[in-house]
């Protein structure tokens, strides 16, 4: 197989998978080194962008997934005949921001920064799959430590946490 064919195979696997799949998985299927997979994926991502394809490959935390290009969303919504689902509230975004920048973080930490109770919002963010329990703190009560998920990265167009826009002070 030449490179174009390998890329074709990966594209078709991504289509069938629907869900994100890891570089490791792709490497196992194609009997390729993970590093080469990553290199090839980068090339594919660039290629999809360059050709302004309707689909793009979304990378988040070493996983890859097919998605439509956000630039074309207006037309998709016209087709669906519906506006997009309601976005997150200000309170949820604040909470999410605190978890994203400070993770791993306990609910108490989030509450002390925001100055209000956050039980409901944290549960909602967990249910929406944007944050998750990552560990337990080794203090009395063993409080849950929260962190963001891969879905969070994809939802905000980030490939890794390093891409979070810097927190600006004043």
């Amino acid at each position, binding site marked *: 197989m030449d490179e174009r064919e390998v890329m074709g195979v990966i594209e078709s696997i991504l289509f069938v998978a*629907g869900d994100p799949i890891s570089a490791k998985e792709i490497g196992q299927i194609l009997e390729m080194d993970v590093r080469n997979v990553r290199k090839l994926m980068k090339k594919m991502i660039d290629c999809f962008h360059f050709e302004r394809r309707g689909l793009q490959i979304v990378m988040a935390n070493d996983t890859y997934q097919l998605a439509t290009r956000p630039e074309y969303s207006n037309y998709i919504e016209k087709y669906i005949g519906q506006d997009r689902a309601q976005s997150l509230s200000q309170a949820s975004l604040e909470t999410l921001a605190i978890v994203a920048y400070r993770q791993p973080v306990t609910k108490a930490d989030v509450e002390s920064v925001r100055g209000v109770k956050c039980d409901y919002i944290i549960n909602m963010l967990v249910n929406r799959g944007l944050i998750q329990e990552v560990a337990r703190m080794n203090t009395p009560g063993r409080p849950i430590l929260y962190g963001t998920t891969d879905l969070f990265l994809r939802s905000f*167009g980030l490939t890794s946490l390093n891409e979070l826009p810097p927190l600006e002070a*004043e």
Partner: protein
Amino acid sequence: MSYVVKLDQFEGPLDLLLHLISKAKVKIEDVSITEITEQYLEMLHLMEKFDIEIASEFLVMAATLLHIKSCILVPRVKPELEEDDEADPKQELITRLLEYKKYKEAASRLKEREAYFSGMYYKLPEEIVTKDTEDVLTLDTSIALLQDALCKLLQTRPGSRVRTPLIHEIKRDPITVNEKVNYLKDYFTRNSRISFFGIFEDIHDREEIIVTFLALLELLSNNFIEVKQDIPFGDIVMKRRVSNG
């Protein structure tokens, strides 16, 4: 003439304070606690007037502000002690406000990103029927085989009838609970330890199973026997309770 005042929804006391500070057009560091406290309390009164429920967090902040204000007004009695005791409450509040503001700004940047990237649509995984997900049926299955299987199944339950008669005959209970109780009393006297499962092993009649079970409950409630189960779902060992006299 009535008019409507639109109050912004504040995400908490810190949010409200930030709003007041930005309205006063001063830097957070240079804020005058005296002025801001007044405005803050005014705002709470306004909220009360408009029947907006004030969360307890807002009241805690009001108390904090008043505390800071009083600290500023009242000269310190023991200044050197104060320093060790606790950090300057005003400085503490300013640090909190600055910290909160950072995340509030980060949240608005996230909001922009979300608005853009929520325009991506994903696809559900393909639903693929594989050999594993197919029902386990061999190709040479026939009606005869199924019938065979059914008959075998019915035969394994002795006493069960293939056909239910349309007319039911109401019979007297072959054994009454009382009879069974007496029988079991005798049985428990002769045998020291009896397995719960074992007692039902030889009983195939449904009514008799029920009667036996009821009889056992009866004996248990009369303190005639005691039962013990070592592991959950394990066998229950029953034995006659040794009477104390």
